């Protein structure tokens, strides 16, 4: 399965730095060499393999006995073996201690938890166990009992002494890293066969451990953080590093506090959205009610119940879960209740590529329900602004009394970036449609003239008892109605309500150029790469290339057409086969939209985009 002969597609990961550290005897050099060789064979344009300084044969477990090997791979020119380690694999506490400083906050650290014994911690001069004392809170720590898992994997291999068994745990680590970065184990298995030609038991043992690590990472769906920070100017203020999923969770916490509502989350675990659930369950001190439900459908329907009873209700999922939630989302839409559905998109269809990123749920979000069922759709575009768009999703939902789908993706959800901390006091007001007492002639489907949002009358409120349901309802009373004209009226009112949201969202902006030869269009999580690509083009002298990045998908910003018409050519770049391009074509006739698409489960790389844009301009 792993040892396929087919040529892999060319990798476009930009500058990934992986560092393996452990005891001199842990075989870190070998591990690093294997990873870099495999990466080079995989087709990375440039792979540099700087040997990380190591003391030779120092006392085991000591700080100066740490051996390391850093692999720097990427498709852009790599200038220096920088300190920006994306993934640190630490086989013992000493390795962690001496190398943690090089890891970008928010990035991943894999440790062999078996090695964190009292003795080893003392040797590494740790006063408390860093895995337990919270000092690693800014990193994505993956604790794996590598020594015991290696022993377990080799239980049935005969002719191995204890030392050979423990020494092969480096291959477990390598197997994990191979899976995380989409590398084949083929090259390394070939290496075993050559190196241990006369020791079949060692070929078997090393292959077994390598595969065990590979499958372990697959089973746990480990995801590396490969988010590259857009090199924008940082405004003054207090910052912290946040992961996209954490920022999403925090955006909802802020919206709950601002609106004075309690936050309810109904959710079912799914990669890569589960971290939002993990984050929100921590915050019982804010009164967060988080229900891990029996399935995706119960996740959304419990949230609908909570919304009916007056909570800020959300449900979090990824593509397959959104498919399961479709019918219930239609219910929330016809009930006209506030509800936010977060879809952290991953590679599809079906189970697809759970740990990889993609933007292929856009049309599902727009149309994946029976009947005429419009909802508001917005998309976050960086790990940090997941906070703002989660907040915005809650605000729009509450103020317009309709469900909102917030699209993020695996890339920004698992990526980390600096976030200028926003105090709740700085956030815009959220005004609920709650009514506290019966007006003389109140009806459940009375609407605000401007927004068309209906009142929110919740159980427990005297005199406002009423029934709602999934059947079509009379336009005033909300009672069941099969009247043909009424159905048509209600269908158009529900659509108009969503359409009018365009009056409450920001206009579409262009960056780098307001008019000119080429408009680059993107939406959602591709912003960082599109931004840096267009910026680089500008630095090369292509000054008439602009970028328009969409965060509002339904409704579209009011000035969209006007922006489109200012450019000679337009290219829509998406990690799908052209879903947003088709939405734009449907909305704006007579405008030609070129497409640049990628469906490899990987984010865009700068070089491929720049190459494509230049090609278009030169035509």
């Amino acid at each position, binding site marked *: 399965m792993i040892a396929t002969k087919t040529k892999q597609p060319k990798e476009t990961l930009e500058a990934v730095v992986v560092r393996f550290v452990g005891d001199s005897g842990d075989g870190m050099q070998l591990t690093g060499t294997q990873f870099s060789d495999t990466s080079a064979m995989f087709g990375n344009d440039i792979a540099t393999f700087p040997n990380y300084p190591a003391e030779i044969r120092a006392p085991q477990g000591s700080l100066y006995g740490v051996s390391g090997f850093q692999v720097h791979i990427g498709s852009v020119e790599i200038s220096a073996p920088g300190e920006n380690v994306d993934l640190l694999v630490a086989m013992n506490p000493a390795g962690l201690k001496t190398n943690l400083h090089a890891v970008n906050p928010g990035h991943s650290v894999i440790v062999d938890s078996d090695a964190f014994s009292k003795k080893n911690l003392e040797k590494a001069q740790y006063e408390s166990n860093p895995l337990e004392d919270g000092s690693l809170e800014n990193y994505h720590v993956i604790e794996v009992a590598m020594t015991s898992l290696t022993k377990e994997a080799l239980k049935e291999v005969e002719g191995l002494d204890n030392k050979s068994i423990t020494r092969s745990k480096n291959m477990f680590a390598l197997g994990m890293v191979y899976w995380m970065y989409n590398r084949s184990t083929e090259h390394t298995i070939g290496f075993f066969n050559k190196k241990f030609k006369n020791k079949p038991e060692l070929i078997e043992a090393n292959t077994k451990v390598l595969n065990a690590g590979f499958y372990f990472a697959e089973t746990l769906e480990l995801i590396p953080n490969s988010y590259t920070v857009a090199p924008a100017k940082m405004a*003054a203020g207090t910052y912290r590093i946040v992961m996209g999923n954490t920022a999403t969770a925090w955006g909802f916490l802020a919206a709950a506090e601002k609106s004075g509502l309690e936050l309810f989350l109904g959710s079912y675990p799914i990669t890569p959205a589960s971290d939002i659930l993990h984050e929100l369950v921590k915050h019982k001190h804010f009164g967060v009610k988080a229900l891990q439900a029996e399935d995706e459908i119960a996740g959304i329907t419990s949230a*609908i119940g*909570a919304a009916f009873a007056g*909570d800020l209700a959300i449900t979090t999922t990824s593509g397959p879960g959104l498919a399961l939630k479709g*019918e219930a989302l239609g219910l929330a839409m016809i009930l006209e209740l506030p509800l936010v559905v977060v879809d952290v998109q991953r590679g599809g269809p079906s189970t697809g590529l759970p740990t990889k990123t993609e933007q292929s749920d856009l049309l599902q979000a727009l149309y994946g329900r029976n009947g005429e069922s419009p909802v508001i759709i917005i998309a976050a575009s960086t790990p940090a602004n997941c906070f703002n768009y989660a907040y915005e999703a809650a605000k729009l939902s509450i103020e317009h009394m309709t469900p909102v789908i917030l699209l993020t993706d695996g890339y920004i959800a698992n990526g980390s970036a600096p976030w200028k901390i926003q*105090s709740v006091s700085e956030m815009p007001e959220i005004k609920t449609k709650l009514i506290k007492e019966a007006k003389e002639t109140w009806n459940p489907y009375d609407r605000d003239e401007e927004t068309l949002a209906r009142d929110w009358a919740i159980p427990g409120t005297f005199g406002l008892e009423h029934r709602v349901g999934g059947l079509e309802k009379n336009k005033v009373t909300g009672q069941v109605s099969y009247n043909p004209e009424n159905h048509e009226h209600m269908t158009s009112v529900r659509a108009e309500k969503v359409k009018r949201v365009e009056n409450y969202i920001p206009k579409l902006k262009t960056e780098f150029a307001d008019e000119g030869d080429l408009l680059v269009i993107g939406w959602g999580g591709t912003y960082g790469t599109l931004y840096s690509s267009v910026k680089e083009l500008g630095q090369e002298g292509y000054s008439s290339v602009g970028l328009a990045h969409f965060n509002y998908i339904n409704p579209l910003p009011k000035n969209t057409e006007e922006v489109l018409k200012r450019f000679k050519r337009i290219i829509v770049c998406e990690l799908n086969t052209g879903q947003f391009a088709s939405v734009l074509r449907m909305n704006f006739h007579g405008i030609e939209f070129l497409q640049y698409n990628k469906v490899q489960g990987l984010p865009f790389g700068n070089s491929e985009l720049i190459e494509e844009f230049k090609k278009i301009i030169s035509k």
Partner: protein
Amino acid sequence: METTATPEYTFKDFASDQEVRWCPGCDDYVILRSMQKALPEMGLKKEDVVFISGIGCSSRFPYYMNTYGMHSIHGRAPAIASGVKLANPDLSVWIITGDGDSMAIGGNHFIHVLRRNLDLNIVLFNNEIYGLTKGQFSPTSLVGQKTKSSPYGNTQPPFLPGELAIGAQARFFARIGGNTPKEMTDMFIKSEKFKGTSLIEVLQNCPIFNDGCFSKYTDKAVREDKQLFVEHGKPMIFGKERNKGLVLNGLKLEVVTLGENGITEADLLVHDAEAQDPTLHQMLVRSEYPLVTGIIRSFPDVTFEERVTELTAAVKAGSSFAKTDDLFFSGETYEVK
């Protein structure tokens, strides 16, 4: 919730202005009226009562109640009701469902709501048929039953709702004939009082698609001889002459006649609905002669919301976070100038 006095209601206060549209002669009318009569006895304010239903004939129920209500989607009422209850634990939340809604399309929610044990009430209208979709077999239809979708006889063995529910850890399970409004009213009141998820299975006749499905147990002429109506703490006696009873013979229930072979009332099983061990409750649920009705199981246990409330209070007490700002600015932050 305000603490003003609960008004005196009559059953009319709980009837909505909607015309009831069930087929003439349907037991659903009996259930509706029993509920409207039970509610004024519960000491609840009308605005604190919520009915949530799924899809099916039974699920039209909320439209006829002058309370808060939601007619939702097929099978999902337990999950929606759980959300309502967690959002506002002060509400009295009722789930109205049928055999198809709860045990076919909504089977997953049905077992999990019972397992969690929120303080909810479920009324299960069991008519062993799909009514609204016009006569297909349901998960409680009998093997061999001829329906629109089993013209040569049903080949799928049925669930016994009580057996499934107790297997899913139901703390409260009751069964009642659809033609006994007085007992039903009383059962609704007891179900509301019970802290935890209570499930009432109503043996509901469908006069159109499955007429007479329970008549061998529920017809007035045979009811007393064929049904044992159990009450907590009372011996298991039944029969028109009140001379039949249940004893335990090995691992089986056995019907005995009082006065025969020296059997006296003291030899009979005494119903313990509150026992934690559900073994005997399961035997009562499975018994075909007599068919056991009444509150079969009523085991008091901690509710889900009690656990949540306790845990939340403990976390709050041990936390230094009062506002989200406390969280956002905590831990590792840095300044950009």
